[in-house]
């Protein structure tokens, strides 16, 4: 038993409570800006410290795993007792979650530090750290939980924090709306998740992850349909959390939150929870090939939508948001190809470079006094050199320029999906979509770089004085830039004849499903024939070429400002708005779902409830009153009519009784 693992979520939880208390203390101090008061500043340190402590614990756990032990487990907490079965939750660190906790706590720590600078002076400074710590707590619960139900605690918890942090600047109104949208769309996924979990309970009688993974291959025979439905439903949950089509529209809106939040939650960690879920349950998916095709299709489609939309965005954070959507699509494509480690690899590198990009963008926004529109930027390389350099490093990684982290992780995914085409022809289509998305990725990334840092200043220098950010902000940028640049060594391609570190590391987790996949594919794992080597080399070259060509085109076209966009808008207005509007998915939701639902609710509340159901109730009462009035009218005061009634009554009574 390794009960110290409980410390991992506990540190941030306590940190969160402490920060929350400090927030209210800060409010009580009566200073004009509670964010600058002593308690608030203390909260910043406490929050960062708590996450730092968790990072240290993660490292300890990680190194414990380097030995022969494949998993560390804490003692269990009996949570829900459903009578016939009980749900226990323990903290487990295995090879997969160890990667995740390192990424989570590490990136979180950096972003906490970054936030110390970024959020300085915000009235809700302490609250911000409380929420961030709460998020880290939830994320760690998600990653570490031994049970799907415990995972769901974290799953919902991160959703909550996302909601709270997106709406952090609630006074403005629309961030709150965006938060609500995020929560609700996540909830749609969560509902699928819940039903999926019920199916798993029915199949396995437990929600213990090791049980499920261990027995998934066994149940393939009898229950594969049910298991497939469960897998599909859980993927639905992942779609919500990881912003996959059709539930991706909340993520761009989530950019309403403070930028560190976007970096941490909406790029590096939370949105990858879906990827983690599928990777965690890899045996379940391995035995459901049809579901994998759907996963891949959704991933590829999302990658396309995200990348193509990012091309036409002007808000720097929106570009990054759609880019995230698109990159998450890659990860799912990887998962769908059975490349669990590759997906996690891309998850990790993405955490680095996208975190970096967001933080860089945050630095830009900070320096530009909350300006986010790239059309009013340009030439910032002169004003913010550190930010600029790190940003370019991140952009290079994202666009998959050779030898940077993104290059290796993305190309591995593309290669594996191409290779998977041997089993299912669909994967060729998925692969080509991936290639197209890669091209667009390179294009929009460098468009963004060009618009932001390249060219001339397009803002009014009399009003805006861009400045470089403080060290608390640039420090994390530098660290992340290093990671984004050299992160690729975790998973160098097999053709280089160097070990794929991550894949090796994760082998105990993926072995069963890999074996199953290989068995169904009909060849041994890991065998690299000459043809494969050739194809892999070819694909590497293709990836590098595309990245370079489109990065160049993107940068060159926009070096002098956003004119090409206007040209496109004039020439092909429909296409431009189609791209800018993310294929009109969100608008369609609003028109076809949100509005009708609201209308329906109104209809239910007024017509059905008030008129029909309550109308029946009140109608009965009204009827009674009307009948009472009629009955009263019988009593007209005249003895004669009373007597008539009596006579009639007597006569009828006699008639009825005699003739019956």
């Amino acid at each position, binding site marked *: 038993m390794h009960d110290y693992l409980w410390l991992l979520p506990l540190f941030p939880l306590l940190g969160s409570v402490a920060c*929350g208390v400090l927030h209210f203390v800060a409010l009580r101090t009566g200073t004009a800006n509670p964010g600058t008061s002593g308690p608030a500043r203390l909260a910043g340190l406490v929050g960062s410290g708590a996450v730092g402590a968790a990072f240290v614990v993660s490292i300890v756990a990680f190194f414990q795993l380097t030995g022969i032990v494949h998993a560390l487990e804490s003692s269990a907490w009996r*949570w*829900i*007792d*459903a009578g016939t079965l009980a749900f226990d939750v323990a903290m487990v660190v295995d090879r997969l979650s160890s990667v995740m906790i390192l990424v989570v706590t590490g990136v979180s720590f950096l972003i906490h530090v970054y936030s110390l600078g970024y959020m300085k002076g915000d009235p809700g400074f302490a609250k911000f750290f409380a929420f961030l710590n709460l998020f880290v707590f939830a994320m760690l619960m998600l990653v570490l939980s031994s049970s799907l139900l415990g995972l769901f605690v974290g799953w*919902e918890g991160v959703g909550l924090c996302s909601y709270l942090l997106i709406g952090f600047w*609630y006074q403005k109104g629309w961030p709150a709306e965006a938060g609500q949208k995020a929560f609700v769309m996540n909830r749609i996924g969560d509902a699928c998740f819940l039903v999926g979990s019920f199916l798993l309970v029915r199949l396995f009688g437990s929600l213990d992850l090791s049980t499920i993974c261990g027995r998934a291959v066994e149940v393939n025979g009898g229950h594969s349909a049910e298991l497939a439905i469960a897998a599909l439903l859980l993927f639905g949950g992942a779609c919500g959390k990881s912003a996959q089509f059709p539930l991706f529209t909340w993520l761009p809106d989530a950019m309403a939150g403070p930028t560190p939040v976007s970096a941490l939650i909406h790029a590096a960690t939370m949105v990858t929870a879906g990827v983690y879920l599928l990777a965690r349950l890899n045996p379940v998916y391995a035995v459901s090939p049809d579901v994998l095709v759907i996963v891949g299709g959704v991933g590829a489609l999302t990658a396309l939508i995200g990348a193509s939309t990012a091309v036409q965005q002007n808000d720097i954070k929106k570009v990054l948001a759609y880019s995230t959507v698109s990159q998450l699509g890659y990860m799912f494509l990887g998962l769908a190809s059975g490349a669990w480690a590759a997906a996690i690899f891309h998850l990790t590198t993405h955490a680095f470079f996208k975190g970096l990009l967001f933080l860089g963008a945050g630095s830009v926004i900070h320096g530009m006094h909350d300006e986010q529109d790239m059309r009013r930027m340009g030439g910032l390389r002169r004003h913010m050199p550190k930010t600029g350099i790190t940003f370019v490093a991140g952009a290079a990684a994202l666009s998959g320029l050779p030898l940077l982290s993104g290059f290796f992780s993305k190309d591995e995914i593309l290669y594996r999906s191409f290779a998977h085409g041997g089993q299912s022809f669909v994967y060729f289509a998925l692969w080509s979509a991936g290639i197209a998305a890669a091209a667009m990725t390179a294009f929009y990334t460098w468009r963004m770089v060009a618009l932001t840092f390249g060219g001339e200043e397009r803002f009014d220098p009399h009003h805006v004085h861009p400045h470089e950010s403080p060290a608390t902000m640039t420090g994390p940028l530098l660290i992340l830039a290093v990671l984004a640049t050299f992160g690729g060594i975790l998973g160098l391609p097999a053709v280089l004849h160097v070990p794929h570190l991550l894949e090796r590391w994760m082998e105990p987790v993926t072995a069963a499903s890999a074996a199953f996949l290989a068995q169904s594919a009909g060849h041994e794992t890991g065998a690299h024939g000459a043809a494969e080597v050739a194809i892999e080399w070819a694909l590497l070259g293709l990836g590098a070429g595309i990245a370079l060509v489109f990065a160049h085109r993107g940068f060159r076209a926009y070096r002098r400002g956003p004119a090409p966009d206007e040209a496109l808008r004039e020439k092909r207005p429909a296409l431009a708005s189609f791209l800018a509007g993310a294929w009109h998915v969100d608008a369609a939701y609003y028109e076809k779902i949100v509005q009708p639902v609201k209308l329906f609710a109104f209809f239910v509340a007024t017509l059905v409830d008030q008129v029909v159901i309550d109308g029946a109730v009140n109608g009965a009462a009204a009827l009674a009153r009307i009948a009472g009035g009629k009955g009263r009218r019988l009593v007209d005061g005249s003895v004669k009519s009373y007597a008539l009634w009596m006579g009639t009554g007597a006569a009828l009574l006699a008639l009825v009784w005699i003739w019956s």
Partner: protein
Amino acid sequence: MSLLTPLTLLPLLGAVVLLFLPAANVAAQRLWTLAVTTVVAGLGVGLWLVFDGGIATAQQVVDAPWFTLPYPGGEAVAVRYKLGADGLSLLMVGLTAILMPLVVLSSYGHIKERTKEFLVWLLVMETGMLGVFLALDLVLFYFFWEVSLVPLYFMVGIWGGTNRLYATVKFFLYTLAGSLVMLVAVIALIARAGTTDVPALVAAHGASEPAWIFLAFALAFAIKVPVVPFHTWLADAHTEAPTSGSVILAGILLKMGTYGLLRFGIQMFPATAIDWAPLFMALGALGIVYGAFLSMAQNDLKRLVACSSVSHLGFVVLGMFALTQAGLRGGVLQMVNHGLSTGLLFLLVGMIYERRHSRMIDHFGGLAATMPIFAFFFTLTVLSSVGLPGLNGFVGEYLILLGSFSASPLWTCVGVTGVVLGAVYLLMATRRVLYGPIIHEENRRMADLGAREVGLMLPLFLFVVWIGVQPDAFLGKADATLEALQERIEDVRGARETSRRAIEEALPAAEVAR
């Protein structure tokens, strides 16, 4: 010496004493009421502590002769003053006992006139509700059941909002209509069984009773719960009731309906309940969705919370009539959860109503800035209500849906949409009340919650978190009771299965013979 008689009758005694307290000294009246309810809460906790969760049958039974019903055509039936607590009662009694002192405290804020009367009714109400949960004699139960209508009638009618008269009369008549139909069934049942003793009636298994008896009981409870489409009284009653009335109504009174469904529906007539369970599951699931849509369209915050009750109680009904252990446990737990979360919501709505004299969502906005403590508690309550894991609501909902899934995947899926819709309307309301810019100047001047207000909510939040993290601490007390109930259900199912098989086996033989 059983705790139950003092527990049940102490509030009534307190009410009588209260009548003789000087009319002018409101503080003394409040203090007295608070003291009485606190003592009762203490007794409730005491009961909790001495209660043995491993025993399925009622504990702490008091049994005394009351009167003899000279039942026509048969031997006389002895009606007894019999109280007892099993696991199910215990949870409800605990909820009632804990909630009442807080309700008294909350009434300080909005009951400024005719305070004494109000407190008297509050105490009478407590006796009525505890009696309902503890009565082990059918006639006694019915007594308490109907008596508990009267105090709320006065509470809404005297201290309610502008449309209070309509609301209170509607509430009274609607629920009474159900109760009276139940009366017919009660009479019939007692005559058929020859006893009013609830355990004896339960032991009789109810299999031979005609379905209409079950349905008549169920109708009364369904109206009380309320199950869609018998819910329209609820929104009006809640909207017009004073805060404390709403809290009692949502927190405890509605539980009388679900409690009744469980005790006098499922436990007493397991066979009929199995037959009709699909209908109730459907009604429960539809209630979830319907209530959610209703809530979505409300502009009155209190009405929204009231409609959300419809949705939440739909979960309870869905879970209970799944007739699985998980469903039953979830249903029972959700009864407590709903009492806590919705009670809290009503308290919170009441608090801003006291400040702003409006409940219209439009009239608020941006309160998080002026009332951060309120915002914190409100958000926490909403999250509990939405069913966030780690808080109480999730455990109940999960168990319910898990339980109902094995009984009916279809209705479970319909019910699951409630998880989404619940988030939609509650967060929408939260956003419109707490967030956004402050549009109305009045909202800038609203004072944040005071110590009394925070203090009275804290115990509830304690339970919100406690149940969310360690639900077994509460459900464990009901373990044996619920397992025994499940056994009864399985017995009936088993017997049916046996007879079905016997018929199936007999059929081919008959065909061969032909």
